[in-house]
């Protein structure tokens, strides 16, 4: 599998996700600078975490209008899988590739800690390494992670099995839902399940040294599904 990791000015999890991807056998990673309107073909496009363009207007808002995103949107339209993590998820909603929006956390503070998420739909290429209903322990680290969508959109997401992960109870201190997301939503798919956005950082639970490696199953599953 060849993955393209998009690097915006202010991305800061680009290296981390590259390391997690390259830890899987047979995965090659290209780093693609935000100013590039075109880039080499890739089996997977990753929008990493961070603070693209400082997140000064609204998280992900400026990145959504960068030259490289035009190309990402075009390729997503042709079915190339796109994974957005944290700031990447925010960019995907701002770019219209995913419905809904990510608001400031309900507690109004940045929150960095382990959370538990339940796999809500294992029948996608992103979840091919995961069991339906399995609960993963993965860290979050964000200020604007409260997923919100109107009732109509939420009903559509549910009907079409687009909800990827929900925050779930576990042994970590603090509430299971760290940010007040509607219906405990931690990650969603687009209608064709080829675009996934999630707030938790699987690349930070990708190595036993991280204190847990539940996140690595996502990268390993993707590599297997995409060859």
């Amino acid at each position, binding site marked *: 599998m060849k993955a393209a990791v998009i690097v915006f000015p202010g991305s800061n999890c680009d290296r*981390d996700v590259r390391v997690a991807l390259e830890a899987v056998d047979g995965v090659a990673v290209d780093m693609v600078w935000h100013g590039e309107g075109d880039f080499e073909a890739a089996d997977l496009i990753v929008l990493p975490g961070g603070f693209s363009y400082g997140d000064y207007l609204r998280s992900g808002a400026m990145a959504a209008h960068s030259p490289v995103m035009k190309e990402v949107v075009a390729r997503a339209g042709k079915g190339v899988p796109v994974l957005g993590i944290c700031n990447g998820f925010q960019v995907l909603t701002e770019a219209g590739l995913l419905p809904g929006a990510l608001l400031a956390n309900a507690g109004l503070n940045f929150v*960095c800690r382990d959370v538990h998420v339940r796999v809500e739909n294992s029948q996608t290429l992103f979840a091919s390494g995961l069991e339906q209903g399995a609960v993963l322990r993965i860290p979050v680290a964000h200020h604007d992670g409260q997923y919100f969508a109107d009732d109509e959109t939420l009903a559509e997401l549910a009907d079409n099995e687009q909800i990827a992960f929900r925050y779930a109870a576990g042994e970590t201190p603090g509430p299971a839902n760290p940010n007040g997301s509607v219906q405990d939503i931690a990650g969603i798919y687009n209608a064709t399940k080829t675009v996934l956005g999630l707030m938790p950082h699987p690349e930070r639970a990708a190595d036993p040294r991280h204190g847990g490696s539940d996140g690595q199953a996502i990268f390993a599953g993707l590599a297997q599904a995409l060859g």
Partner: protein
Amino acid sequence: MMKNTPGPEITLEMIAEHGLTDGEYERVVNALGRAPNLTELGIFSVMWSEHCSYKSTRIWLKTLPTEAPWVIQGPGENAGIVDIGDGQAAVFKMESHNHPSFIEPREGAATGVGGIMRDVFTMGARPVANLNALRFGAPDHARTRHLVSGVVSGIGGYGNCVGVPTVGGETEFHAGYNGNILVNAMTVGIAPADRIFYSAAAGIGNPVIYVGSKTGRDGIHGATMASAEFDDESEEKRPTVQIGDPFTEKLLIEACLELMATDAIVAIQDMGAAGLTCSSVEMADKGGVGIELDLDAVPQRESAMTAYEIMLSESQERMLMVLRPGAEDMARAVFEKWELDFAVIGRLTDDGRLTVRQGDVEVATIPVRPLVDDAPIYDRPWQPTPAPAALADEGPAVAPMTALSTLMACPDLASRRWIWEQYDHMVMADTVERPGGDAAVVRVHGTAKALAMSTDCTPRYCRAAPEMGGAQAVVETWRNLVAVGARPLAITDCLNFGNPERPEIMGQLVGCIKGMAQACEALDYPVVSGNVSLYNETNGQAIPPTPAIGGLGLIADLDKRANIALKRDGDLVALVGEGIGHLGQTLYRRELFGAEDGPVPALDPAWERRVGEAVLRLIETGRLDTCHDISDGGLLVAATEMALAGGRGLALEAPEEGDIAGWAFGEDQARYLIAAPPAVMDGLLADLQAADIPACRIGQVSGDALTLEGHGHISLGELRAAHEATLPRLMGAA
């Protein structure tokens, strides 16, 4: 060119406003051979401020040990550097941002973090970890909540955006900081040992380059503010607090590291305190050259800025570089890619002068050497701190389990989760030991080794007995590093004190430095960088003496390390080291009886070294994975922290005779708790005995409560609830 001495005549008021004494002004006139103009006066005033010149402390700082075979760079550069093997070096420093953080907590703390990171990446290192040592006023003081909330969000807001994990530090509360909080930020970076960048300018005619953010009017006289006491009007100093932009800092890190991979840079220095003045003068002085600046070429954010304002601005996220001739275009391309300003603003000269022009007008011309070398140095009178009286009375007996509940919930021992969950402590994906243990552990990227780091100071010891307190601060970082299995390498320090012109304050400073020197010497644990923050006083009330120490150690093999969490039911727990049940100056006295009294515990750095090295050998040989040093709160608190971290209960055997309070809560030094399976523990105790280190079994891991034989038990759930609730409650979040 027009020769000119622009601006008004210098008056006595202007000299006083610039914080210069009459004697100091006389030195200025002697150095110049004439009266200065206003810009020149401004330049002298910041260069000779306490913050930049260390004029009250220099003679004492020189007594600190700074050398060891593994030290690559000691004090005097932007940061200290130690060798960590395999061609790599760790670059680190701690710095204060106390005064601005009190005036404007969010921006003050944020720019403190930004400034210390620049000190580290200026030397060619990628920052890999931030820590911070924070001290606030009493929890119930009217300003405390506002200050805590602002400082924490400032530190988080900056570090999280830049993408450097904030992995550790300390937070304490005491009424002694009601009028002056302490915000000490530390950054650790990693560089290739053969590609370290220094600030000494070289090459007459070489271009001087300005990169980063534009210059504005913010922060003018920040260094002077940091060298004066506060009074009731200090709020008016808000405009001298700088505004931080972490996004630009992130770009600046990437652009600088990209350029540092080439051979374009001769010298580089960040613009911190005293901005363009300090950076240009220090680069020229270290290189023994002159420097000529054209202020019209400096990128400016505001219009009609005067030379005085441009030279003294402390706008953030700016760097000054000297490039090899002809490297300008390549360097410019790198900075343009990162959308940062890049301007050639001057060149190096052979006349040994700082010459500043604005258009055709020469606005300042000062010989560099006297500006640096003629800075006043004071041997200020000092008075030794009187020894504290003996503890007359230990107070009424309190049931130990009741006292334990109180202590676990007290503001200085309660869980700091509310704080560190607001810091991204995992970005870069190399954080191996998260906040809450003895020391943070961050893997050296792509290797199986790691850096361990800890910041410590016990101001109540420093106030009662400065020499012991200074030594204890050093020793406690050392002990915390040992407890995770790291070989301690070196320290950075941040010396926070009151007004040094008062002999009793100077006595605290001298005492603490003497103690630090003794501990560093005994532990082979030199000082490689640091900072001094004086005049932490409001209306004549000084802070408790607070020499914050940041220690750095190396874990050679990540498979052989320890943390505080109890890991297996059935493990035996043993006490290493011994105590007499010393209760003077303990948290027990303070929290249970409101008394800060008595002598400090005895401390012998040489003995610390013997005990610590014996414990370290157990960890390094892969036989010990659970260890915690005993410090604030004593043995029973340490044991409870281990139980809570592991989520496992612990049954402790009480001593057969003697004072139970002293045994449980005494703060005797040089002690650790260790835990291991029974079969392993036999071997560990035998090793310790062979090394003549006292060690004895005191309990066993079992159940889900903390039990003290003959004194009852408390469930972990109850202890955890009390321990976790305090900070959220203080901050109004629960």
